[in-house]
């Protein structure tokens, strides 16, 4: 009695095993898939009273890309293959030779870049049929974004000597102002297809 008893130390050799099991469980269930995709901004909903008030855009400023239910592509009246779309879009957005059929240029003062003639009134309009497959639509969107990305890369290499993605924020904003992304999502129509 009155004798101090020694508390036996807890055997902790199995904690490693226990935590290993937990670790393996989380390793298996974890899905580190960072979701990626094409980010788009939808236009705000139309106001009731301006339902039909369409904004007047000059014909030369619009690149109409139409996709029918069979997946065929039409770009401003010509049937084209999807591989040509990127170059068509680039030529349209850039309008290097100031062609009167391509979007109009006007001088704009952009910080860091100075006064530039930009085609910021252009619109690329994508129209699809209700029966068009989503995959074709997505590839069209992908090609259009690629056109913008390539143009932005070209410009940033020329002006800043680096790729667009490597630029600091304010330079990226300047480049974006030079080549604003304008892809309009028109309501679908029936181009000889389903329904």
């Amino acid at each position, binding site marked *: 009695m009155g004798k101090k008893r020694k508390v036996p130390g807890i055997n*902790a050799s199995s*904690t*490693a095993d226990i*935590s*290993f099991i*937990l*670790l393996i469980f*989380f*390793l298996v*269930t*974890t*899905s*580190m898939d*960072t*979701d*990626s*995709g*094409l*980010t*788009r*901004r*939808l*236009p*705000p*909903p139309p106001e009731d009273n301006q339902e039909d008030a369409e904004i007047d855009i000059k014909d030369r400023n619009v690149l109409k890309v139409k996709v029918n239910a069979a997946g065929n592509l039409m770009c401003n009246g010509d049937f084209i293959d999807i591989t040509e779309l990127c170059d068509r879009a680039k030529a349209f957005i850039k309008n290097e030779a100031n062609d009167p059929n391509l979007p109009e240029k006007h001088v704009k003062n952009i910080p860091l870049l100075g006064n530039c003639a930009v085609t910021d009134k252009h619109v690329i309009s994508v129209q*699809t*049929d*209700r*029966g*068009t*497959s*989503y*995959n074709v*639509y*997505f*590839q069209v*969107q*992908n090609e259009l*974004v*690629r056109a913008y*990305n390539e143009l932005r890369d070209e410009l940033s290499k020329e002006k800043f000597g680096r790729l667009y993605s490597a630029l600091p924020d304010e330079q990226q904003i300047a480049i974006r102002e030079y080549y604003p992304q304008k892809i309009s*999502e028109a*309501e*679908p129509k029936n181009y000889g297809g*389903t*329904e």
Partner: protein
Amino acid sequence: MGRFSKGGGREMPELNTSSLPDLIFSILFFFMIVTSMREVELKVQFSVPSGTELEKLEKKSAVSFIYVGPPALHLRAAMGSGTRIQLNDRFAEPAEVMDFIAEERTHMTDQAAQVVSLKIDQRTQMGIVTDIKQVLRKSWALRINYSAAKRN
């Protein structure tokens, strides 16, 4: 001095493993934090299209998902094989997207950053996609993301 004991029957010192649990625990915590267990059971099948110009989705807490595709195989008997929309844990009609978005918004701290990720099967027809987009416009969920896989 200068004498080395040779062949003195030296034993390998035992490796001290007392820090091993701590080590494993820190890895464990890492995985616990990064893990995101799918909270919804997928009822539709989809294989997203592949693209080259993808951006990563940031701010996971502000993302709502809409799945579109044919019902999963075990639900085909009850639901048929037509394209369906899944919101959370159930099938829904395009018009229900509006309520879904409003409900999702109430859970969000940063409502302006709300992004709707559309996980749509490649073979879906654009009609249903457009219907969803029109409803999204009406519910002011304007930032959308067409989910896709990376392709080189």
